[in-house]
């Protein structure tokens, strides 16, 4: 993450739903290996921003540019539907808070992971299964569970499976929407530790939406604090959390209950 060109650049992104504002003139860039946390309470526009960045939602104004694998930086809006789908299947991951949204619950764990490999052209059954096994192991899922469906998995296992499914194609950028939300604290800790290691090992760029400042501190290099659709403060994660400048950030930081 040194002097390379940014991977993703957001320029003046805005989105309004009728008269209600989802997100207002958000600009930033993210480089390979860099984790950006977007924090703020419910309704602050975090999830809208994530959907705009990942092309799931069209902005009312502004644009998102992305440096493709061929090193050409392109406006997402200029991509055809097929190109956008290909990006989603290969170079991007999207981890939902609810694993059921990111997994196919009725097919086996191995098929959930293998499906992404088949989508990028893998055809040989043996290598697909080996690829799936490698990733199940990396997310600490017992190989013996490869033929079980996610229905039979616990919440924490489902989330780890969703991560494996996303990372198997070696994406450069992963969007995460409250990846540890709804999990027990002990399960959260394990997942965070796993994500920290994977992000470092594969030099992933990630945009992580969370309302949990502890998650932001553990995972991210930089942080953006959002309120009512606007970025109120941004910077190095420890700087923003240890020396919050804006009233809203000071309120968020001071509202954490000590264990």
């Amino acid at each position, binding site marked *: *993450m040194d002097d390379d060109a940014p991977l993703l650049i957001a320029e003046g992104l805005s989105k309004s739903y009728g008269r209600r504002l989802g997100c207002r003139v958000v600009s930033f860039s993210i480089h390979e290996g860099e984790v950006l946390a977007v924090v703020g309470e419910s309704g602050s526009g975090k999830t809208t921003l994530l959907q705009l960045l990942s092309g799931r939602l069209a902005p009312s104004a502004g644009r998102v540019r992305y440096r493709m694998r061929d090193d050409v930086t392109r406006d997402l809006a200029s991509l055809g539907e097929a190109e956008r789908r290909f990006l989603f299947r290969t170079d991007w991951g999207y981890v939902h808070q609810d694993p059921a949204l990111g997994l196919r619950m009725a097919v086996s764990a191995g098929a959930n992971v293998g499906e992404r490999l088949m989508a990028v052209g893998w055809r040989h059954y043996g290598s697909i299964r080996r690829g799936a096994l490698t990733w199940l192991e990396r997310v600490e899922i017992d190989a013996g569970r490869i033929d079980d469906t996610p229905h039979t998995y616990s919440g924490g296992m489902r989330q780890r499976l969703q991560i494996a499914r996303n990372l198997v194609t070696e994406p450069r950028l992963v969007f995460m929407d409250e990846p540890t939300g709804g999990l027990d604290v002990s399960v959260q*800790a394990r997942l965070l530790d796993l994500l920290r290691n994977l992000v470092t090992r594969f030099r992933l760029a990630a945009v992580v939406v969370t309302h949990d400042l502890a998650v932001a501190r553990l995972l991210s*290099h930089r942080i953006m604090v959002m309120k009512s659709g606007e970025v109120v403060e941004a*910077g*190095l994660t420890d700087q923003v959390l240890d*020396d919050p400048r804006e009233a809203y950030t*000071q309120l968020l930081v*001071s509202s954490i209950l000590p264990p």
Partner: protein
Amino acid sequence: MSPNLLELAGVGKCFVMHLQGGVELPVVAGVAFSVAPGECAVLAGPSGAGKSSILKMIFGSYRCDHGSILVRDGADVVDVAAADPRRILRLRRHVIGYVSQFLRVVPRVAAIDVVAEPLIVGGIAPAVALARAGDLLARLNVAPRLWMLPPATFSGGEQQRVNVARGLLPDLPLLLLDEPTASLDGENRAVVIDQIAEKKRRGVAILAIAHDGDVRSRIADRLIDVTRFAAAA
């Protein structure tokens, strides 16, 4: 910039507490000093004089409101007060080491991994990093049976030794030490003092806070009186 590794000029900091009606807490003003390679400068002054805040501004975990904080990074000179986050992160990987007052524990991460992490992030092979982490933990009398355990359950002194090991292990040109020997017993204090002396011999520039008079007299080449930089309240 002179041969100094670190040079502060006109540095000032003031906290504005918005939740307390915008009350202003001036911390320091007009901070100016420099630290050269191979010397250890110690910040002196009573509690609350702003010593830790100065270290945190240099490391970039506190913002600097006024002035400049120049850090030499090879052929470049970076002003931490104005640098973007990515540049500061790069300085932390390659130039500035920091031993904080307390270990910030990460759940589930083993002590030896906590210590080795900065080396691995700096690009050293994990096996080598872990071996060096083990050597330093052993020198600091952290029993090998503890290495694979997360430090959350350790005693205060054990946690501090893990913290010191994490901060001292990487070979970085500038080292910030915030009470590195607090809560250590005599034997371990001596190990840390030795390590600091060794760093100085290798040309590391060190800026430290040490309340203990004995430790201070053994590591300091020079005292910087922080009360000179008291901000007008």
